[in-house]
């Protein structure tokens, strides 16, 4: 369903926006604490999942 692909497109953009905020919070040294490291992992995982769904819905 196209709705699912669109939903996951926004979900990925929003997750990457959270990553932007981590850059903003930690600039200019980017020394991440454990909580931020965990959050970064979650964001990357979320974006990958979203891309998988988008790929499945649109390409495969």
């Amino acid at each position, binding site marked *: 369903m196209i709705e699912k692909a669109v939903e996951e497109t926004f979900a990925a*953009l929003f997750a990457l*926006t959270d990553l932007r905020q981590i850059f903003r919070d930690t*600039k200019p040294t980017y020394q991440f604490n454990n909580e931020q490291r965990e959050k970064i992992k979650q964001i990357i995982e979320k974006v990958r999942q979203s891309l998988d769904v988008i790929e499945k819905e649109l390409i495969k």
Partner: protein
Amino acid sequence: MKQMIEDIEVRAREELFINIQPIQAAGRLTPEAMKAVIAYGDGYSTCDWCRKPFRLDKIQRPPISEFHIELAKFVGMDQARVVPGARRGFQAVVNSIVEKGDSVIVSSLAHYTEFLAVEAVRGIAKEIPLNEDNVITAENTAQKIEKVKKETGKLPKLIIIDHFDYMFGNEHDIRGIAKVAKDYDIPFLVNCAYSLGVMPIDGKEMGADFIVGSGHKSFASPAPSGIVATNHEWADKVFRTTQIVSDVTKRKFGIKEIQMLGCTLMGANLIAMMASFPAIKERVKHWDEEIKKINYFVDEFLKIEANKILSELPRKHTLTKVDTTESFDKIAQTHKRRGFFFSDELKKRRIVGIFTGATRAWKMNTYGLTWDQIKHLAQAFQDIAKKYELKVV
């Protein structure tokens, strides 16, 4: 940084640098607002569910109507509207109250848009002089009112005072001035462009008849965005609705508000304000921490010999004017890059926001920086001073 579209570059300075630009600090978006911009960037995006009576502040989905009610409560007033910048708030109030030849009392540190709002209706702006600490006092306000009364035979129609001014970030005696305004029965507008959204604001407690705020200065919102709020006494006048009937088609325009020119802040800017609102409500509770950070920075900055702070001390606001004429400007006199050496050195340390080339009197704002970033900032100035053999005590 890569180009976004043809010659428009990606703006990533908030991700890559500590930005101490004086007017940008508290307008940086929350992540919620950034998401709102992504989702609601299309033109009339807020109008999908606009139903009768066809006015922005009545829209239920997304909950724009509820936001207006909550916003009024948040600023301690009875009614609030969103507007395209604080300047449109001044304009709405001035248009409602001031007529040609009327006097309006403003601060000697008033923002230029306050003057323009008065000029637009052919009013006359009269400035209150500052005291020796660059603060507007109740006493000076009363003296100015008396002077205007003597000169024109009439009382001023409106008093507009900045809660914190744009030049020094000094706090002005709003409550004292409110009492003077009440004694003379002159309506009082408080310009909270630098306070609404960063610290708790209660308009009625301040004695204000009108509160104006800036979304892009202090409410983590895109430009232009702003707020105008008032009490029941003035709401009918400032937010009066159209009565006009067109002559040929006999059209009427429902309950559109004249001073708002109907619907005001449509689209992503409004939804971003709404998206930032929960974070705004939370962050104003931590203003004291922001003040601790700027005062820590100031203490460290003053360890560099001959550095001065031109704003009032201790700091009550993160916007601060400093003077480095006798320190960094002396280096600039003989440096091959002249004044640009200073911004070059700061940029090497991942700091931007000072007007390029400025080495004498300049402004900065530390709002929203973490303690780590504040310490990095203070250390950077000291490191530059040491590099050029300025004394750091």
